[in-house]
């Protein structure tokens, strides 16, 4: 090493030390205030009947209560009573009667009644916004809600069209769309029969631990605690979520003590921040899967051997241990770990020789395809790694990077050869992923089932569709688990989906913050239990 190199290296080390050592004039946030840096540019609406993005769900989880909900201190326990104190299931498995808890009030001071619950659920069905399928899959429709969702005294009864697994129905009610809104306040703000949709997009009318003070798009969300919260007033009286785009900026803010929690640090910044004084990092397994999928309209990509070959051409270990380190873990099944019926089987490894064999068997010699990926750095890097391994078997894969909407539009119209992206479950039940990866009753172009991943890839599921249908009405827990294991075993081998990784969310925070949870794989972040 010559002098010049030594100089540069010592400069680098000096810089690194300077960054990680405690800086002068350390700031601190007030004791009763929680400040979080997060990317919140995905919030488009706060109406629980419409909200469907990550940052929006975080707000909803803290502002609205649901019939049943998860306890952030014990997420493994599954759904727990919240607005519903208890429930009964009829013998035919189609009717569930909820008894509403006494003494809950909305932020407006109005009591939370069975009528509010009835209104909220009916409203979500009638408005028919994007997430409404979470409820309408049980047979509710704008025409029949008068009969199927009914309040009576302090109970609410819902009637489904088939005897679904009770856990499936209740899990769906924990989704954002199950949020209970204040009927009187909402209807007072109704415009042109929109059931208050316009108003609720930017305002809230809930009964949760926090109420919304302000939402400034691409800037911040400010929440104020609700002292009348039924589990006691939250310790953090004010929660501010600031939009900070860059990981580096988030880390600097955290190290300087200007924020309490940074939620979007990349692996390198996590590594750097965790060695800084006064900062800890919490890992939580999330439900999001990273996958690549092959369009079955493509004459070569639709060959079974080619589908298999792709699964051997992913450098799973290499990526997991390098640029995805700590934030993704290898996972090759469509149900995320921790989900009912999840499987940890991971038979595929990076094996170029095996892939070559398979391709030769399929008679593939030279191939040029296009992969679509959105402009997120980790995805672009996965794409490049894939491109690199495909090149070794003579497949040339061109990467097209575009904005999320651009790539998605092409994916939805079945135009891409290969799509590389992420999928997050909509509600914490296996049906959420089974019903999209392995379910496609009508594979024709005319069906336009753009919400189904199997349809987007023009895959007829090789007979898995009826099995998915059967699993969803199976009320015996163990039998249901086995059914999903069987579906996934077949899916792994035959499907055109190369499922690669499951996300781990790393939240870096000041070490005086306790009990913070982003909700793991099943729900969103909640703040009421956080202390400092």
């Amino acid at each position, binding site marked *: 090493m010559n002098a010049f190199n030594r100089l540069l290296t010592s400069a680098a080390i000096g810089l690194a030390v300077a960054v990680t050592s405690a800086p002068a004039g350390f700031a601190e946030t007030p004791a009763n205030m929680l400040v979080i840096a997060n990317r919140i540019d995905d919030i488009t609406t706060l109406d629980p009947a419409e909200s469907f993005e990550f940052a929006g769900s975080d707000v909803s989880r803290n502002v609205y209560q649901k019939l049943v909900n998860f306890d952030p201190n014990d997420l493994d326990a599954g759904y727990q009573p919240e607005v519903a104190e208890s429930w009964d299931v009829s013998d035919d498995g189609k009717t569930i009667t909820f008894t509403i808890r006494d003494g809950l009030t909305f932020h407006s001071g109005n009591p939370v009644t069975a009528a509010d619950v009835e209104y909220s659920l009916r409203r979500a069905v009638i408005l028919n916004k994007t997430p409404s399928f979470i409820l309408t899959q049980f047979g509710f429709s704008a025409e029949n809600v008068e009969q199927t969702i009914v309040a009576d005294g302090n109970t609410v009864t819902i009637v489904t069209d088939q005897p679904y697994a009770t856990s499936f129905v209740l899990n769906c009610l924990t989704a954002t769309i199950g949020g209970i809104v204040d009927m009187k306040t909402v209807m007072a703000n109704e415009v042109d029969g929109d059931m208050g949709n316009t108003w609720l997009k930017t305002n809230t009318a809930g009964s949760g631990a926090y109420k919304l003070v302000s939402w400034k798009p691409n800037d911040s969300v400010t929440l104020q605690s609700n002292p009348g919260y039924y589990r006691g007033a939250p310790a953090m009286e004010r929660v501010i979520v600031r939009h900070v785009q860059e990981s580096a900026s988030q880390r600097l803010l955290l190290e300087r003590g200007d924020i309490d929690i940074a939620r979007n640090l990349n692996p390198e910044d996590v590594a750097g921040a965790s060695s800084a004084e006064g900062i800890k990092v919490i890992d939580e397994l999330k439900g999001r899967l990273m996958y690549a999928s092959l369009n079955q309209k493509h004459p070569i990509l639709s060959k079974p051997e080619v589908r298999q070959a792709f699964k051997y051409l992913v450098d799973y270990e290499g990526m997991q241990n390098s*640029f995805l380190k700590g934030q993704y873990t290898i996972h090759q099944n469509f149900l995320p770990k921790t989900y009912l019926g999840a499987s940890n089987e991971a038979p595929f490894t990076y094996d170029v020789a095996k892939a070559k064999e398979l391709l030769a068997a399929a008679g593939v010699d030279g191939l040029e395809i296009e992969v679509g990926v959105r402009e997120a*750095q980790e995805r672009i890097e996965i794409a490049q*790694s894939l*491109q690199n391994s495909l090149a070794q078997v003579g497949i040339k894969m061109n*990467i097209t990077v575009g904005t999320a909407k*651009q790539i998605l539009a092409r994916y939805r119209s079945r135009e891409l050869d290969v799509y590389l992206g992420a999928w997050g479950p909509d509600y914490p039940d296996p049906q959420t992923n089974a019903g999209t990866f392995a379910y496609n009753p009508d594979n024709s172009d005319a069906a336009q089932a753009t919400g189904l991943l199997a349809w987007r890839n023009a895959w007829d599921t090789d007979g898995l569709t009826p099995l998915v249908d059967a699993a969803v009405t199976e009320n015996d827990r163990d039998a249901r688990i086995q059914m999903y294991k069987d579906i996934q075993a077949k899916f792994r081998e035959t499907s055109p989906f190369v499922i690669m990784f499951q996300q781990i969310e790393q939240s870096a925070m000041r070490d005086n913050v306790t009990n913070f949870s982003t909700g793991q794989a099943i729900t969103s972040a909640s703040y009421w239990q956080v202390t400092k």
Partner: protein
Amino acid sequence: MSETETLRAWLLTDTPTSRRHARLSSFYKGWLALRSNTMAMFGLAILVLLGLTAVFAPFLAPHDAFAQDLGNRLQPLGSDGNFLGTDSLGRDILSRLIYGSRITLYIVLLVAMIAPIAGLLVGTIAGYVGGWVDLVLMRITDIFLAFPRLVLALAFVAALGAGIENAVLAISLTAWPPYARIARAETLTIRSSDYISAIRLQGAGPLRIITKHVWPLCISSLIVRVTLDMAGIILAAAGLGFLGLGAQPPSPEWGAMISEGRRFILDHWWVATVPGLAIFTVSLAFNLLGDGLRDVLDPKDGGTQ
């Protein structure tokens, strides 16, 4: 020796014998003036070096610019075999930088071909024809000028899809209006000059006048302008790359390299800094050269002539 002496004398003569002689002579004098400007020569030298690097990239690059090695990623400066370190996928940064010079040159040359020529066409036509044509063309120019530049480029790239060719087109689209303005202003002055009237009296048509007499006179101010804009063009391309809409991976475009490397800026600062320095150096070279050229060519600076 004596032959070069006479060539020099021939070039420096005050009494040119032919039109060609006069042109060569003034060119040579300009070159002498430029050569005395150390800064400008420094800029020129860097650009020549860039050109050579681009041409001989395969011989200069120590590694394959695309070869990944995940076990050898984010190596620091001066590590064995990777003088400038490696990036997130374990690719050799120096090799990528060397190959990237081709893309940079490609962008610069292409934009330099498109924008000034488009501007020259619009500007001279507007200036020479005048009247309604002038009004319409200049309003169009105004519209493009008033448009937020990055938005226009982004919209264009978003419409046609990301990629280096589209980025070049998008940048050209935002870069032509100023050239049109300059060309128009020059044309207006030239048009009313006596010798153009004389040519017109001899029966030359507008096409001939514009191409043979107006254009050559606009060129010098355009060249100065183009050189000074080059830095802006490289930075604009880098900005598009930074937003993920420039060159497509795994292309080693410098802006895209910064964009990839900025994630590690706090701990592995060189990954973004090295291409940043490359962009900076080339931009600076163009600016120094342009600034020198302005001193030589711009008649407004009375001092040198």
